[in-house]
């Protein structure tokens, strides 16, 4: 339990630091969720793009070379 609490507080602290540097500290709750979802979906799309397009393309170029 102690470990879980420690991890939780660690995560909480760094989430707080994340809200500070992205200015989400001072905005309303729904705005914070909005940006978080937006960022997560952006990263997901980026991941998908890399996985489905960029990786095959580079491997194609490398194997051709």
């Amino acid at each position, binding site marked *: 339990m102690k470990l879980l609490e420690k991890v939780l507080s660690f995560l909480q602290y760094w989430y707080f*630091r994340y809200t*500070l*540097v992205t200015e*989400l500290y001072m905005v309303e709750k729904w705005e914070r969720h909005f940006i978080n979802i937006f960022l997560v979906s952006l990263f997901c799309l980026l991941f998908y793009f890399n996985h489905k397009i960029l990786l095959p393309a580079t491997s194609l170029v490398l194997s051709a070379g």
Partner: protein
Amino acid sequence: MVGDWRRRPVGRERQVESQVPWSGTIGTRIEAMATTSRRTCVGTTLTEISETEQRIQANGITSRLGCRVNNNGYAKAHPANGHPRFIRESKDEKENRTYPIKLSKYNESFEKVPFITAALTHFGFYILMFLGFINQLLFTPNVAKERKRKGYAPLYENFEQFYLRYVYRRVRDCWNRPICSVPGATVVLKDRTTNDYGWTFEFTGTETKCINLGSYNYLGFAESTGPCAEESIRTLKKFGCSSCSSRLELGSMPIHNELEQLTARFLGVEDAIVFGMGFATNTLNLPSLVSAGSLVLSDEKNHASVILGLRLSGAIIRVFKHNNVKHLEDCLKKAILLGQQNTGEPWKKIIIVVEGIYSMEGSIVHLPEILKLKKKYKAYLYLDEAHSTGAIGKRGRGICDYYDVDPREVDILMGTFTKSFGSAGGYIAGTKVANILRNKHKNTAVHLFNSAFLQTLINYLRVHSHAHSYAMSMSPPIAQQIITSMKIIAGEDGTDAGKKRTKQLARNTRYFRRKLNQIGVITYGNENSPVVPMLVYLFSKIGSVVRTLTTRNIATVGVGFPATPLMEGRIRFCLSAAHTKEQLDYVLKNIEDISGTLGLKYSNKPRDPNPIEYYSDSETE
């Protein structure tokens, strides 16, 4: 020479005459100034001098005595301004020009922002803008709306308005806080809460006593007890609270003349003129000193009042980089070489406008170097000492005292009474005199001539300044507060209380700044300036730092966009002589604490591993 013809009663000349001892001469001069733009020689004394001294070099002017005398405030084109004649200097002139510049006095730092922080600040700002637009789209802002304006262009829709509603509003609880005590070393805040993210506030009914690091109370004269308060009350009972008239009409009281003489004595110049409002001192006097066809070289970080005044004047404004003497020289050279825009005519006059201590940067002007430049290129110097007068220098006389420079070398000294003196208002002090002439000739004739010229600038302002002619004169108790505090600083009250305050402030400043450097936060400015900006960059961090410090009973001020560049949010600590070492230690301990948890340790500078000493009263640095 634009004299306002509607308001030229006979009383004007009479009043000016009564203020100077050689009223005959001055009266003639003022009249001559008002009626004709070109003046002829003024009596036999000058002709005598003209035989002995053919050419004097007034600041920015090379003129011939006896035939035509140009002086400051004389708005006709100066034949020599912008055309410096490089004559060989004699030995004592050279000595006059070299200052013993102590490099330690320039000891200032402007650390660059780490790249990652800059990137994140931009990113965060885009997020805020984005959210602001979405918020505006979905909800109608909770503000007053313009009604019955169909067909009119909107009055209040601009970027600043948007910024105020969707960036500033979110952290609005950190500014404009209501207080309910004297803002001395400590201040009592009236607590308030908001339920709608800063659109409205409600008082909770409780109060918090905080250590006050947000007031420009440099020497701690913001007190509700003590000699200043007592004398002010006495004056209030004697003279009332207002004259309800402007200085030029019926508002002049003996207390104003006393204050002006005291200010001049305090600053070490011949004459001064005081106004009831500090901001207006800049804004309303600059237009009477410069006009279209003049060039103003203004520091990048100059205060809004200076900028407003310069814009009102219609002069061409060129901005040089903050405290960068080399860039200033480049600007001067270019300006003199190319002359006025389009026509290429020489400038009527060139004025360098700088501040003593820059309130947002905490830096101190490089006065000796600028004085050298000003003499080399024959420009005028306007020094705004709003934050420095009283606060800096061994005797508390401001920047000139700090650098051990003769204050008479600065053409126009401006300052406010709002900060160090714990009062309100502003002054302009100065002389307009050929320094070279003063140094060369010690005979009485020249001295007589000098003293006739010394008050030219101030007398010119007494006639032409809008603040002097139209603004209400300073309230007597406010003037009394300045007089008493100034006398204490100058030691004219017979005690060393003023000296103690100046010393205490210097000690506090050094201690606080060094400790902050040791903590590892980025501070800007000179190590001797009592304004200490601590860079936090992000809006959220301004908010979080101010809020956290308030919970720990420390009141500070955050500074954001309109006052600073968009990406350079900062917390500004204003030190005071009223702070004790214990209070500062408490503040520093808390700053160290939160700079760890909030991530404010941006500095890459090497830190001093040794503990910082706080010098006691007996020790002298």
